[in-house]
């Protein structure tokens, strides 16, 4: 096997090996652990950059072997997987930096960082999986490795949330397994392929295909927090901030959304799914989720819970994008995979900073925080405006492209959904911003801590600012090559003209 076949394996291994090393390190080995963590994150980022460049030039990275009789284990790098892999590699690095600061002096760090690395390894596996079977393998591994992170604090509340999380995700996993096994029985071992496999499927299996599609979406929809399968996400907010950040921005919800993209594009094929008539109901479901979650977000008083509902709403943009038939909308949906990640992780980092520095968890405690923590609040503001869709930020690009796509696909009602959703986004983010900047601060903060010169620890201070800057950059520089938007267009080009 050539070196190219091994690069995806190496990318996977970096965090897997890191996890094992970290588990074996003693709790006190703080410096060594941080070095291993950051070193692995950097190596992985390097490997992903190599692969991105390679995929752009059309190099074939892939490895496969028969695992169970009749099924192969396939790792493969294509344009779509590189988008997800790139996102997780970049954000893993930042989140690791952030988590090192966030968990300073707290117990069980070895355990935390071990599972954290396992979680990233699973995400990487999901990105690089070359068929549904391999995808499922890492999808379930993700469930297992995130559970210890969700219950990390070990309180009754955390354990309850962990239980809800497991019930949802494992049931979803079971449904997904059923769907995959059934599909395997109907059509055999299907590799992910641009254009899909069912363009000229035998009409006799149409009914099974539709049923399988529903099962697949139901299984994946749990992690993607599609209505009505979203209940676990707000509860999982008890986890430490870096976990929420990673769960929401990259790992879990994106794994679900990414899976749906894979199913629609690379298993069924967008034309076949459209012909089967399964895309339009999916679009309606996504649109409903967008609006429903936004409305629910309005009434949340806890900052992280409000952000959670915002996530539910935003992830459905991705699903909406892929379920609108047409290249433009597709690009909009795909690019949101990245954009939402950047914006949401910014917001969660900031929420974590508020909690860690000032002890603020509720929105009504946030009066005047902007003066105490201007850097963090600036990042928060950028993230919030991005979510609302203000030009020229990342969120604006998404919504604009999605809107154009909807027009091109002849589904004008989507425009109304987009506008309404933006208004709702504004309605739940602007009051926070108002409190941040324009209200008088309270006499004292709930639980204030000091870190010398900066407003908070340097480990906590820089990551949100960096992601905020990126949020601006991906918006402003959207038309450059290798920007998320151009990469999404590359994917769509390959999908629609296989």
């Amino acid at each position: 096997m050539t070196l190219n076949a091994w690069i995806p394996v190496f990318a996977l291994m970096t965090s897997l090996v890191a996890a094992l090393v970290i588990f074996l390190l003693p709790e006190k080995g703080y410096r060594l652990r941080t070095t291993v963590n950051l070193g692995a994150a950097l190596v992985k980022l390097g490997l992903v950059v190599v692969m991105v460049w390679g995929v752009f030039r059309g190099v074939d990275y892939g490895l496969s072997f028969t695992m169970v009789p009749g099924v192969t284990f396939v790792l493969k790098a294509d344009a779509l997987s590189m988008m997800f892999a790139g996102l997780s590699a970049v954000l893993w690095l930042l989140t690791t930096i952030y988590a090192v600061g966030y968990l300073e002096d707290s117990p069980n760090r070895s355990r935390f960082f071990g599972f954290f690395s396992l979680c990233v390894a699973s995400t990487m596996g999901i990105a690089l999986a070359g068929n549904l079977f391999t995808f499922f393998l890492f999808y379930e591994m993700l469930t297992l490795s995130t559970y210890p992170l969700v219950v990390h604090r070990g309180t009754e509340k955390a354990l309850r949330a962990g239980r809800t999380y497991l019930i949802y995700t494992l049931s979803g996993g079971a449904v997904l397994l059923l769907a995959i096994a059934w599909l395997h029985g109907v059509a055999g071992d299907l590799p992910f392929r641009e254009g899909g496999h069912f363009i000229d499927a035998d009409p006799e299996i149409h009914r099974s295909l539709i049923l399988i599609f529903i099962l697949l979406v139901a299984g994946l929809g749990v992690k993607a927090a599609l209505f009505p399968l979203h209940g676990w996400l707000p509860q999982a907010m008890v986890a430490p901030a870096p976990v929420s950040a990673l769960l929401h921005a990259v790992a879990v919800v994106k794994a679900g959304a990414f899976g749906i993209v894979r199913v629609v594009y690379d298993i069924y094929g967008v034309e076949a799914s459209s012909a089967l008539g399964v895309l339009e109901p999916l679009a309606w479901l996504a649109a409903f989720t967008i609006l429903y979650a936004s409305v629910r977000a309005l009434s949340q008083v806890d900052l992280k819970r409000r952000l959670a509902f915002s996530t539910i709403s935003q992830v459905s943009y991705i699903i909406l994008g892929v379920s609108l038939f047409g290249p433009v909308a597709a690009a909009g949906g795909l690019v949101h995979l990245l954009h939402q990640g950047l914006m949401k992780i910014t917001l969660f980092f900031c929420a974590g900073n508020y909690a860690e520095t000032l002890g603020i968890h509720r929105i009504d405690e946030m009066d005047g925080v902007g003066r105490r923590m201007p850097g963090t609040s600036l990042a928060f503001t950028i993230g919030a405006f991005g979510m609302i869709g203000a030009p020229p930020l990342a969120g604006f690009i998404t919504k604009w492209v999605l809107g154009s796509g909807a027009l091109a696909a002849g589904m004008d009602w989507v425009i109304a959904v987009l506008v309404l959703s933006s208004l709702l986004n504004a309605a739940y983010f602007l009051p926070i911003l108002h409190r941040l900047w324009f209200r008088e601060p309270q006499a004292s903060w709930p639980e204030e801590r000091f870190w010398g010169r900066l407003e908070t620890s340097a480990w906590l201070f820089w990551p949100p600012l960096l992601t905020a800057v990126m949020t601006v950059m991906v918006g402003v520089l959207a038309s450059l090559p290798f920007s998320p938007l151009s990469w999404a267009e590359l994917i769509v080009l390959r999908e629609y003209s296989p």
Partner: protein
Amino acid sequence: MTLWLMAGLLFTPLAWAVLTLLTDFAWGRVVTWGGIVVQVLVSLGLWLAVSRDGGFYYGLGGWEAPLGIELRVDGLAVTFVLLTAVVASACGFHAGVYIDPDKPWHRYFWPLFWFLWSGLNAVWLGGDLFNLYVGLELISLSAVGLVALGGKAAALRASLRYLLAALLGSLAYLLGVALIYGQFGTLSIAGVVFWLEDHPVPAGSGLALALMVTGLALKTALFPLHRWLPPAHGIAQSPVSALLSALVVKASFYIAARLWLELGEPLGNLAAAQLVGLLGSAAVVWGSWLALRQSALKQVVAYSSVAQIGYLFLLFPLTYSVSESVSQQAQQGITLQVISHALAKAAMFLAAGNLILSTGSNRVDALTGVSRFLPFSLFSFGLAGVSLMSLPPSGGFAAKWLLLQASLGSGQWWWVLVLLTGGLLSAAYVFRIYRASFLENSETDEFYHPSRSLEVIPMVLALMAIGLGMVSEEVLSVMALPFEEEGSP
């Protein structure tokens, strides 16, 4: 070469049983470790020989069936021989450190251990119905002896219950054997199959198969005949529990499966196959539910065995009057389930033993907060749990995948529900243990770390159970090897 290997395989455990009987516990440990090395090498050698040249029949004493006893050395048998070598040696090494050498009655652990091993090998290789009966009794009696070893009233109660169940099961099996002999005049399975190939099925032979399968199901603890298992497996010393759950129940199942695959098509019927499958499903659900409700750690693991054994019996409906490929998938799935459950359950019991050693209590609640101490054994327990939940990439998952394919392929979709529900239920009881260990409100600051050698063994087994899924194709390919025709009856 294979002659030597076969002789070594049969001779070593029996000889070591004698040797260890003549020593005390500490010396027995040293002797046993030597024997384990020999036995593992011989098993591995035989496995390699068979995977290179294919299987063969081995006539003991130079006599061929039906007059003498022939051993059937095929890919499946040597796979299980190797599995036994792996699991038993892990348990042996663990027991050497785990069991208190100062109690005088513990010296009898080693001879019983070796007799158990020899009985297992006899069953995997057995091709003669009556010889299988003797092998089963060898296993049952040594297992009962191990459970009862130096025990107090509760252990004796459990072992008596176990003994009575095992004896009843054996008698039912022997009654079936008597009918088969009366009907066909031979005790060799291959002989019966050979005759049935070109003759009509004689009347009255269905009962023989039913009796044998029922007796073996009782020995395998199929629902609703499972009630002897949890007390016995729960109360034995952990290495013993590991041996019992991982290997002993599999021996009787193995015979039942072999009988069904060879004789099920001519002698069985559809209703019986579905009934057995239904009982297996009930075992999956009921066993998992009870596992969820136990407060003692080892009882959770023991009831989990009841549930996992249930899956095995799905073999019966999934191989009866279905297409060749579906039957093949089902057989492969069950084989993987047997192997992965053996590895995972042994790992789980050994890890549970370590946790009990650490916390000084068998209660699940006592695990509160122990994940803080990063117990290696908890991690092994968790990894083994992944295989029991049949999550990827474990061997349990590969097994479930094949069984799903077989159920869908044969149109018996109702087993799909059982497989999926069973997975979720097992997740429920496994995560209950994790949950306890993650809880952070305990005052306990004391945590005894058992020695590394105790902790490494379950970890190795658990990693093998996980890794099995990735190499299942290779493992299964040995099973499907063609038989060397010369020497067959």
